[in-house]
């Protein structure tokens, strides 16, 4: 029995190895699928579709977007982790999926490090801390001073418990030593509605969502959670300028393959993605949504995942954040 099984395994491994080699040469020879863990219409879908379209041209095979929303990216992650690592199933992955959720959810059904092979980071979006336009708070130091004067009296809305919006808010509390009341909402639109309606005093959400409101003069941006200002909101200071240099939080998106994908495939894909990322057309396409185009090597992406995973782990521990 045992012998038979190990022989079968060896044969299977051999077969996989051979097909793997054969594939690298003429890869891709049939249509590819890019799994997007969100429904059509959001930032992730927009990024995924753009890259799918561009990759179709550069790889010479159609890249079909497959939206698999649900369970805060877990359904897509699980499906991709179990997919054949033949390079024909790609996935868009987010910071939340690879760096935050693993720190929060004990019984996660996938391993963010072992189950995926990072290919390249493609885009990132910083967060913004905003208040109502009529608020008397008009800078980050003023917000911190107000929060210190009345501990726990100010509240902030986030796009959900355990999301990057929430963790950015907690990072702000942690770095500035203040106490703000966290009020989670079901996504960005209700969270921003909550601030516009005056239910909460502050909102922490993505540049994509808040920029139009700030441009229209409905809200005031106090700080951008990145090292540099955004051309979209030239009047909003960066974290360093606002006096809180460590307040950097970026929601990034990257392409990953299921575990076991051959290095040649990773290299080929990462090369193709790099060419797309460097084209000025790509930057232009995303600029008005506040999405920055990123590029890098597979190793660099792996490092980013590990680094952010560790950092958010610390914030989660310091803020005693749980999904309970």
């Amino acid at each position: 029995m045992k012998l038979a099984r190990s022989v079968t395994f060896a044969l299977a491994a051999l077969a996989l190895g051979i097909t793997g080699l054969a594939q690298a040469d003429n890869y891709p020879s049939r249509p590819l699928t890019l799994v997007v863990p969100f429904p059509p219409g959001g930032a992730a879908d927009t990024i995924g579709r753009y890259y799918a379209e561009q990759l179709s041209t550069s790889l010479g095979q159609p890249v079909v977007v497959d939206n698999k929303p649900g369970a805060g990216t877990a359904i897509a992650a699980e499906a991709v982790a179990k997919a054949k690592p033949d390079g024909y199933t790609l996935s868009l992955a987010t910071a939340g999926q690879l760096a935050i959720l693993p720190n929060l959810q004990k019984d996660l059904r996938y391993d963010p490090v072992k189950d995926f092979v990072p290919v390249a980071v493609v885009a990132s979006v910083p967060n913004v801390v905003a208040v109502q336009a009529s608020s008397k708070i008009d800078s980050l130091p003023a917000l911190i001073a107000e929060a210190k004067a009345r501990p726990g009296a100010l509240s902030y809305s986030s796009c959900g418990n355990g999301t990057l919006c929430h963790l950015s808010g907690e990072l702000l509390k942690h770095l500035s030593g203040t106490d703000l009341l966290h009020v989670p909402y079901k996504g960005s639109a209700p969270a921003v509605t909550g601030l516009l309606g005056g239910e909460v005093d502050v909102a922490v959400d993505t540049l994509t969502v808040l920029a139009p409101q700030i441009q229209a003069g409905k809200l005031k941006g106090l700080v951008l959670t990145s090292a540099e200002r955004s051309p979209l909101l030239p009047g909003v200071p960066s974290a360093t300028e606002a006096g809180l240099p460590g307040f950097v939080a970026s929601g990034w998106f990257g392409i990953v393959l299921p575990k076991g994908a051959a290095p040649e495939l990773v290299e080929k894909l990462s090369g193709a993605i790099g060419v797309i990322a460097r084209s000025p057309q790509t930057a232009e396409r995303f600029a008005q949504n506040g999405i920055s185009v990123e590029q890098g090597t597979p190793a660099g992406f792996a490092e980013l995942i590990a680094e952010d995973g560790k950092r958010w782990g610390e914030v989660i521990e310091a803020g005693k954040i749980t999904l309970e």
Partner: protein
Amino acid sequence: MELLDHLAIGLQAAFTLNNLLYCFVGVTLGTLVGVLPGLGPVATIAMLLPITYGLTPSAALIMLSGIYYGAQYGGSTTAILVNLPGESSSVVTCLDGHAMARKGRAGAALAIAAIGSFVAGSLAILLLAAAATPLAEAALKFGPAEYFSLMLLGLVAAIVLAQGDVLKAIAMTLLGLLLGLVGTDVNSGVERFTFGIPELSDGISFVVISMGIFGIAEIIANLERDHGGKAQVARVGSLMPSRDDYRRSWKPILRGTGLGSLLGILPGGGAMLGSFASYMIEKRLAREPERFGQGAIEGVAGPESANNAGAQTSFIPMLVLGLPSNAVMALMAGAMMIHGIVPGPQVIDERPELFWGLIVSMWLGNLLLLVLNLPLVGIWVRLLAVPYRLLYPSILLFCCIGVYSVNNSLFDVLLTVAFGLLGYLFIKLRCEPAPLLLGYLLGPLMEENLRRAMLLSRGDPTVFFTRPLSLTLLIVTALVVLLMCSPRLRATRQVAFSED
């Protein structure tokens, strides 16, 4: 007259050949997916979103919104003919609409639904054109305390929906509340009642419950009674409403329009309450409330008007503030992003042709739908003559495909079977399903807002009484409860109870 200038811009934009064509395509598709049970506008728009890449932004938005309100028209057709609500808003239409169909008055019910929807749609669009911005600003004042009180009122309405036993109706509402809690809790992120099944972590979708409890359960129960193999709901009566029908319907249509328009504006999503609220009011105001549930045309006219009015005004938060209030609107905002338009407060000023073009096209679309739907009434009614033994496998197939299309999940199809068997049990035990669905829809919103209100008030429950709007809603709720216990309604309940 600023409004006239704006409408001129809109007319210019909407009357290009291209946009007219896509408006027509949108409403036709919408009617089609509305008629097919289970296949709703959310799934359809999500599937078609990538196709709109090649269109102009105006054409894309016009077509996608056409699918949305077109489905509101189409959804009532299935509800009336085969007692199958594909949309949360058509649950109420089933009650009296299908009862009318059973009495051979399907034609009148379908026609009144289309006419009511048209009137309501036109008036709501007028409201949208005249006062979108101030309404959007005003609606922002509706905070968590107000939402909670509104949901409480909605739950009381759920009990009024039932014709039989009040206790069973309350129990069904509570069971619905419990079913609505399945999935990830918004406030804490913890999964509840999911049994570790990933497909349940976003909750049970509405289509699964309604296709199970209404669709499959109804088929099983019908087959049990089936002896001759003839159609169960046949008997084709007159196609058009009588003079008496119009006399009874015009007031409910106007009241429904008002209610639906107001609830549709709420940024937290209140459009689905419109049809329930309208039904409750019509039943209260009617001279013979015992006719409700037995095929009262007011019970079709009011709710159908309310739901189409709400469908139009639910565009307000998205168009004016850039903040989508429901899943369809989130997809519309996504469609804007695909076309390089940032959804936000500037859209009205920066792209007036887009905003006003969409509004004019919505009115055009409603007109098209009326023209499209009235002649279709004859065809739909004839569909009832199809023998049931041929009809039910088709309904079964559409239910399955519809359920599958929501999440591309076969697990959902299996779950629908479970709800079908449960629904069959409910029919046998004389438990009406409508209150369960309303409880399911309101439960999560109610809990979310209760907890948020308590969090924001730092644990002080008086917040529900000190905010004027919330207090008003609570007083109305109390009044409805009192009236429910009043002798007149109790008497009618007893009549209904002893009849069965």
